[in-house]
């Protein structure tokens, strides 16, 4: 059964690009456009990996990550955050909130899949 990835990003183009890349690679994709919707979407079906943007309206990525980590189902689930090169402090804040790792923006599909393979065994 294909693995399910939840992608949370307020940018439709990034969401579509990530969703397209993941679907092409055989993943099932659930999308949400902000943290609050992401938190709801996360509890509707089993999720194997969460990829979230940080800067979002209605609950930002950091808040989403810590809220997810409080849920029993997401205690050990890998969570990746999308961040920009210069955001070293964001990486630390993300790790503290419970993120597993990060994907540095800008990224291409290959880079995305590489980071995913690092935290989600095929």
């Amino acid at each position, binding site marked *: *059964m*294909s693995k*399910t990835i939840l992608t949370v990003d*307020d*940018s*439709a*183009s*990034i969401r*579509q*690009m990530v969703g*397209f*890349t993941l679907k*092409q*690679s*055989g993943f*099932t994709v659930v999308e949400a456009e902000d943290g609050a919707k992401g938190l709801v979407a996360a509890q509707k*079906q089993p999720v194997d990996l969460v990829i979230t*943007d940080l*800067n*979002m*309206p209605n609950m930002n990525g950091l808040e989403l990550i810590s809220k997810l*980590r409080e849920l029993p189902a997401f*205690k*050990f*689930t*890998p*969570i990746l955050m*999308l961040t*920009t*090169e*210069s955001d070293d402090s964001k990486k*630390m804040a993300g*790790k503290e909130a*419970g*993120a*597993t*790792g*990060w994907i540095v*923006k*800008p*990224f*291409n*599909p*290959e880079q995305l899949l590489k980071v995913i*393979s*690092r*935290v*989600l*065994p095929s």
Partner: protein
Amino acid sequence: MVIDISQFNETYLEEATEHLGALETGLLELEKTGEGDLNAIFRAAHSIKGGAGTFGFMKIANFTHNLEGVLDKAREGELPITPPLSAILLQAVDVLREMIDAARSGEEVDDDCGVEVSKELNSYLVGEASDNGKQEVSTADSSDGIRCVNISFKPSPHLLQTGSDPLNIFRELSSLGNINVTIDKSGLPSLKEFNPESLYYSWQIALETEVGLDDIKDVFLFVEDDADIEYQEVNSGERKQVEEILELTPLANRRDDEDRRQGDRRQASTQKETAPKETAFIRVETGKVDQLINLVGELVTTGAMVSQHSQELEKDGNDSLHKVVAEMSHHTRNMQEAIMAIRMMPVSFVFNRFPRMVRDTATKLGKNVELITEGENTELDKTVIERIVDPLTHLVRNSVDHGIEMPDEREESGKPAIATVALSASYQGGNVIIKITDDGKGLNRETILAKAIDKGMANADDNYSDEDVWQFIFEPGFSTAVEVTDVSGRGVGMDVVRRNIQSLGGTIRIESIAGEGSTFTISLPLTLAILDGMAIDLSGVTYIIPILNIIESTRPTKDTVRTMRNNLEVMDFRGEYLPFVRLKDIFLLPSETPIEQGIAIIVEAENQQFALFIDDLLGERQVVIKSIEQNYKMVEGISGATILGDGSVSLILDLAAIMRKATREGLLNKGVSPDKIQGINQKEKVNHVQQ
């Protein structure tokens, strides 16, 4: 697999324009009232930059970098937005708008576009490193042969709770070379203190690899803050020890060394065969494959020409040339098949998504459904595979939603509580047949017919066969679900399903028995590049009709073709009247072939049968489809062209379009055929009996 993301450029540019609007409004608001949501303003710039880099708009990304920096400082309260700064920020908005417009129209902006504004923005950032080029330069040591590294990895107890898993790290390391992992369990506490969610182990890893230390460290990137990691590189003098640890001989000699299988291996030793495996797949741009398909298509066509000429040359019984040419054609055909196979993908690519979907849909509806898939290895052209996903998804979802009954209902009618939906694929001639079968309640003839009459699609007085009734569900705007569920849509589906399948040159058929279930059978061509066609003659011109459309052909007589009151012709075909359309009327060609000397081909398009009258049949041909639209323009009634064996060009007929054209021009009355005519037919029969 090459993933092309340029298709999202348009979405990005639209979005960027939106963000730009928000940015501008926010700045103006701030200027006017002295208050504004600096976070929202920053986020807008941030989003523009993030997407720009991802979608390859580097100028936009570079320019937005400084803008974002200034706004970041402003929202942190480190930089007040003074009127001069506000003016520069608004200038930056204008520059960005220009860049986005240029990107949309595919133009390049001038190199000095925005340079001034960017400089000014940068002046607000002084003191901060404007760190565009911060990327670490990979060290030079990455390619100097095999290195051996001992890694001590002591994760903190809470590592698992960040979603990290040491196994993933070992797996990734093992892809870099040979590794030997030794576990240290000494940190394990007594049972009383043991917390199952904590990690008490640490590991010693010996790695023999050709990659640089930076690449090794990169594997630990996500966990380096949650673990003590030490790397110790072993120089060549100490290599022996590492080899002993690994119990391996150096990579270079490994394959020759038979003894390496002997000796006791330590636990968890992952030995990765490093012999080059990359040759198993090559990534090729689809454009290159398509070009190859095109070229081999030309070759097949030219081959057919050579074959025809050689036959003419050697009419006197000497057939040596012809034999060689036949041999060559054979090879060319094989080559064509082999090249076509490059584009082929197993249907499992589509089927794999259904188990989850069926499970989720069934759970949502409180039903118990088992999905059986068969023939997943059946291969289809990549384009066909991609375009069949939506129709199949729709059909499978429909089966679960509308076809399968609720468990108690099933029990009452003596069916097993667990329902079955079967999805199968198989080859049949030049086609692939995909079947979706369910053991549900079947289509409801009465409901569908009542609805069709209600919607004015059917006539209450007419007799419809089951097959005819099922066709109504493919009509636009038809939906039998009494209540619209959130699982199956709002009756916008089945007509789209049929149209999508037809656009692939395929057909869809329904069989359904009340109480026993339904089967949807989709027939698809293996590829979109080659077509099995029937060559026909009309006024001395050769046309190709897709075999898929042809039911049979017959020679009409004056008795079987009749003119009705509205001047439309019908043909009596085995007791059933079909609209009789003369192709010459459609293409306005001067053919005077009398009825009894021509041929009527019974064809079916969009589930409508009619007789197409032509001069003669020339025989079956397998033709390579060339686009007319790409080389000339779209021509109604023509789906493409092909080059025949004698080098002449022949047009391929699009029967669905011809039917529409004929209906529009009053040459075929869709409304009164074939059912209405059937009605006439019965009345005539009655008259006959009375006489």
